[in-house]
């Protein structure tokens, strides 16, 4: 694929999400600089997943704006946001039935054209398109270490591999911004290292911005260029991993109880 231009900055400004009486996000702002890894951390229930759902268009915020370059994302439906090059994974694995190839090809949906008529009549154009996208999907499977499982049903894969299928599917969108919701949750140490390696590689190779929600502090400290800490829906700290690690507010809210995980 052609070398992608630097992705535009993702700018989150004053985002507030209110569910009935509950304030899930309260005036949260941060900016993901082009080509960086930006981690969003915080205790359970701090609003990290809500934040992701706003970024990918599943929730509409009560107030605030999310801009990707010149595009205002809060007014767009999820599939339009995907077409702009924002891809995400889910905290609990959400794959569809079928093989790894089927799942990765779903990731190519926004990049391909063939509609119902072309598919039904098996027009040569549609078949050519499918072949080309299948080849690219296979490349991405190799890149994420799924090459050997490409034609295997997802349901038969191990937990770690299924997590990787989600990552690969998101990559198949050729995203400019990749949102990873706890990419290593539930993985063992070796799998964590491998996923961290993959994230580092794809960022170097594809030059995309990554927004990372993760509980594994070791991974966050190793991968992230910048960290935003959420607590009870508010952004309580910003900075480099080292700055955040020393921030007393953060220690109180979060790291004080989580430093034990650093070993991972």
């Amino acid at each position, binding site marked *: 694929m052609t070398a992608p231009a630097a992705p535009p900055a993702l700018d989150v400004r004053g985002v507030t999400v209110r569910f009935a009486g509950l304030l899930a996000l309260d005036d949260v702002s941060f900016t993901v600089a082009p080509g960086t890894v930006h981690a969003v951390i915080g205790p359970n229930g701090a609003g990290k997943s809500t934040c992701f*759902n706003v970024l990918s268009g599943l929730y509409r915020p009560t107030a605030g704006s999310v801009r990707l370059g010149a595009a205002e994302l809060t007014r767009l439906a999820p599939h339009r946001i*995907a077409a702009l090059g924002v891809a995400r994974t889910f905290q609990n694995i959400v794959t569809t039935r079928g093989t790894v190839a089927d799942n990765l090809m779903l990731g190519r949906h926004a990049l391909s054209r063939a509609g119902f008529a072309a598919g*039904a009549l098996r027009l040569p154009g549609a078949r050519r398109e499918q072949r080309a996208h299948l080849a690219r999907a296979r490349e991405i499977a190799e890149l994420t270490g799924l090459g050997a499982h490409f034609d*295997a049903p997802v*349901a038969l894969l191990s937990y770690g591999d299924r997590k990787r299928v989600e990552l690969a599917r998101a990559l198949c969108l050729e995203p400019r911004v990749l949102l990873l919701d706890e990419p290593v949750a539930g993985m063992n140490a070796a799998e964590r290292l491998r996923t961290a390696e993959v994230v580092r590689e794809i960022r170097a190779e594809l030059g995309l911005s990554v927004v990372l929600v993760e509980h594994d502090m070791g991974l966050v400290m190793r991968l992230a260029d910048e960290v935003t800490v959420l607590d009870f829906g508010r952004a309580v700290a910003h900075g480099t991993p080292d700055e955040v690690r020393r921030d007393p507010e953060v220690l109180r809210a979060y790291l004080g109880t989580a430093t034990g995980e650093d070993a991972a």
Partner: protein
Amino acid sequence: MSDLRSLLLRRGPLLAAALLLCALPFYLDAFWLRIGLFSMAAAIGAVGLGLLSGTAGQLSLGHAFFLAVGAYGYVWLAGEPGPGLPPAVALVLAVLLAGAAGGLFSPVAGRVKGIYLGVATLALVFLGHHVLLTADSVTGGFNGRSVPPLELGGFAFDGSGPGLTVLGVPFGAEERLWYLGLTLFAVTWFTARGLLRGRPGRALVALRDSETAASVMGVHVARYRSAAFVVSSMYAGLAGVLLALSFRRVVPDYFSLALSVDYLAMIVIGGLGSVAGATAGAVFVTALPLLMTRYADQLPLVAAPGSGDGSIGPTEASRYLYGAAIVAVLLFAPDGLHGLARRARARLRRRAPAPGAPGAGPVPSAAASPVTTDTTARAKEHTP
């Protein structure tokens, strides 16, 4: 050379089945051909419903309505009173008309999900039935209308016209319609499988398994839901036309809610989400009552039609049977006949590890071997 061999191996069963189906009219009498004809029409409709309910996960109880649109659309367009178009044109227009009717319903079909769509489509059946009964000038009211035979380039698909004898077998209406049905079914098979394997099919599967995942992967949820509904209606319309041609008369009472339920039974028995499964289910549900009626006198516990001595008639008996079949399928084989066949195939393959397997052409060997087990484990819906 080996390419040709592997192609034959892959396509062999399909080719054999096609040849067999083409040869049948030379050996079977009109009764069996009629069963086949109704089965083919039902299979076309069932493939359409399978696409909507099995693949896209959208329940529809309105299938009978779209069958009626196709059937009556053809009769009106080709008949008198009506524009009296050439029947072949009327056939195509009737299919498009059914699609358009589905499209008119798309504001609902695109937004309403799963079982709720089932309730919404229920209204269509009652509405349709009422219109069929009251719009006399178009539909012929309660008594229905007779169906103008299909003619294609001077060749009529009915018993009229110059007699035709092929290889010593006189070709009457059934024989001729058999080949028409076979052609239409082949078109259905080809297009539906192309759809399911391509980009639209994957999008529909994703919608069924997780709407959230589908939408963040770029699938326009409402548009794909409506498109699935329209395509399903078009297959129903085609099935309706073939049914009308086979019955030679269309009456409103046929297109009732029970017909919609029959089609649901077909795709459940056959296995959701598969073209072959829908076909098998359609043959089962269609042929069973006809066979039971024919052989009622030889079956225990079943009375001959019209004997009226208080025991079960063949139609009721077949309903009990396929009711039992649905329960059995849901309990023991949730993926239907298609799933059973696939598991049987997998078991055969495991028992007989082909001696020359590695040399048998470009077969994905090692990676594919543990793959044949079923994948019924369903991905969970993500609830954000």
